[in-house]
């Protein structure tokens, strides 16, 4: 497991109030496969809060991904939904939890605020 992934999970409780704004709750298990090993993370999501542990289930949904893909997701270099469509990751169970959780993933590296870009372009930015 990568350092970026470790740091990502550590950051979740502090970010939960801003990210988990819906009155939806449930438990998602994330299975990260690397070589012959699988590392498990368990997150319990509810409005404004998240509990993170290294346990396995019981869970309302399981998301299967490689440790490498997950590292790209938590650094904004990959996008979660397209990874499911190309079958690089997959899930079973309540999809709403997957959609909730994926909101923690950051912008792609080097992204600029589109307003700044547009205003520069039309010469509106002082």
């Amino acid at each position, binding site marked *: 497991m990568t350092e970026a992934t470790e740091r990502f999970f550590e950051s979740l409780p502090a970010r939960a109030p801003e990210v988990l704004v819906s009155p939806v709750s449930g438990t998602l298990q994330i299975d990260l496969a690397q070589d012959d090993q699988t590392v498990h993370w368990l997150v319990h999501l509810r409005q404004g809060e998240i509990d993170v542990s290294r346990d396995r289930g019981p869970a309302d949904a399981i998301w*299967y991904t490689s440790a490498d893909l997950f590292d790209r997701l938590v650094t904004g270099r990959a996008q979660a939904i397209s990874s499911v469509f*190309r079958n690089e*990751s997959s899930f079973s169970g*309540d999809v709403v939890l997957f959609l909730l959780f994926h909101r923690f993933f950051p912008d792609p590296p080097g992204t600029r605020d589109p307003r700044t870009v547009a205003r520069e372009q039309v010469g509106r930015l002082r």
Partner: protein
Amino acid sequence: MKDLVSILDGNTFLVSDDRGDIEPSLDFPTGLFSFDTRHLSTWLLTLDGERLHPLSVDTAESFRTRFFLVPGEPTHYLDAKVSIIRSRAIGGSFEEELTLLNHSGKETEFVVHLDMAADFADLFEIKHARHKQGLTTATVGDGELRLGYRRERFHRETVISTSAPAHIEVSGMTYRVRVGPHGEWKTRLHVSTIVHGARGEDIRANLPQYMGSRNPDAIRAEQNEVLARAPKLGCDCQPLAGAYRQSLNDLAALRYESITLGVRLVAAGLPWFMTLFGRDSIITSLQVVPFLPELIPPTLMMLAGLQGHRIDDFRDEEPGKILHELRYGETAGFEEQPHSPYYGSADSTPLFVILLDEYERWTGDDKLIRGLEAQARAALAWIDTYGDLLGTGYLWYQTRNPDTGLANQCWKDSWDAISYRDGRFPGFPRATCELQGYAYDAKIRGARMARKFWGDPAYADRLEREAAELKIRFNRDFWIPDRGYYALALDSDGRQVDALTSNIGHLLWSGIVDESRAGRIAAHLMGPRLYSGWGVRTLATDEGRYNPVGYHVGTVWPFDNSIIAWGLWRYGFRREAGQICDAMLAASRFFDGRLPEAFAGYDRALTDYPVEYPTACSPQAWSAGTPLLLLRVILGLEPQGDHLIIDPAVPEGMGRVELLDIPGRWGHVDALGRSRTPRGR
């Protein structure tokens, strides 16, 4: 183009020629499709080496067809010694029954052969012809042919099995059969489409509400259930009755199972748009609220669940934005197209807020408004932050994905849709007028929800103040005094893009038009430059880019007209609204009650009938929703508190219109209207 025959069950659909054959096509999506992938690209029947010809085709149901076929050229029809009935249905999988009838008095040997192939093209590869990156395979098994496609871990399969014994090769199946005098022979072919998940199983099997391969009887039962819940229409006007029935059937048929959320959604249109669109699904929902309110919560939940959460230039995504288009195919998965989902529309976000409010006003279902409070607030916040790209108090758009993104992010999203009167194009970003109307309406409706359900009167006051300021600003900056209408858009320098378009009708619907100017807007909409006799054109005839067969620059769109009729009604122009209803229903008669996506903008006096736009989608959800919204306009149905106001204004000569069992917070009520003159024609 030969006549094409389509059957569909949600986003699994099949398009063939009029004898039931599929031949590889690079320009139009013929074939069997499921979840944006073509699972059969060749399906071609011969009898003793000869192609067949149709005597008749039965297309009464959306998911089932029968072809009556004979060998040889049309001159041979009368002495055909053999015929084939090709009976097919779609329901998750595809089934075809071939029945061969020997009309002669002696036992005869026949060779029945089907060519079969699958190219697994993504719908976007058909639109923009590309080479496949992965490998296709064909394997002969026990009584079946397996066609597969793999690219990395992306894996799709088509499995074709036969009930009668066949000689199976990788390119098809052959039957050598002896059929007795006046006897018959049958085989049943079953074609399943498989979307493999990471651990080998079909992804769809994991969806909580996925029905698997529903058989045609289950589809019929479900469609009947939808139809049974809809209000019953009684009227003297046959075109209205026919269009209403056809619309309900088509809306039921366009419902599909979402692969990502496991809920039933309404696809936008066959064949290009069998997927979820933000704009189309919201407009369709607005049209059908009085009739089929149960279609709406899954749509709102899905759009909320996929609401933008980060800045992603490839997808034109920003926090709070509602998606434009979601695709499930290979090009979306491998990020060759941005539809996972793509967020390139500037109107879906305010429209989302409008629909949420409208849905509650009809149904009284406040749970949804409370449950989606955060998403509605995020949408409202988007309007004033990322939506206002230039910080001038308007909604602007400009794609950040020039390769595969959309240049125009309003409903008129073709490249040449937005122009000045002289045909020049404005620079980007652009702020089209109807976007500002939607933003205004979203703030007004957001205020109602904030006050009534979210317990936040201060926020409600702020939204109302902002709406009032927007209305003043808009009426100052968009109004063209010497022309007497609102500009189509502002360009990046804040100058007016001065073409006369149907967009001004959407402004009436939103309520952003100053009362004192509404009469002039109505006169433009019904005047000869915009009004063709069949409806309001997208662009006026004297504009530089006007073209009666241009997708968004001169054609007449039924959905556009339904919104315009709603707007005319809102400002009290009942006669004008009725005129549009009348014209649309008259047009629908030429399409067996099924309004297409668009028809040509030719003057009614010139053609006598509405000319269908060449590659128009049909059925299309917001065209199917059009007769429903027109019916609401005719009967003047408007919820007020816990009651339904019924204020009919039935167009002259339409006779009696009665709608029974309109569902809503009032339970069920009936509405009755009658024109002053009885039905004549």
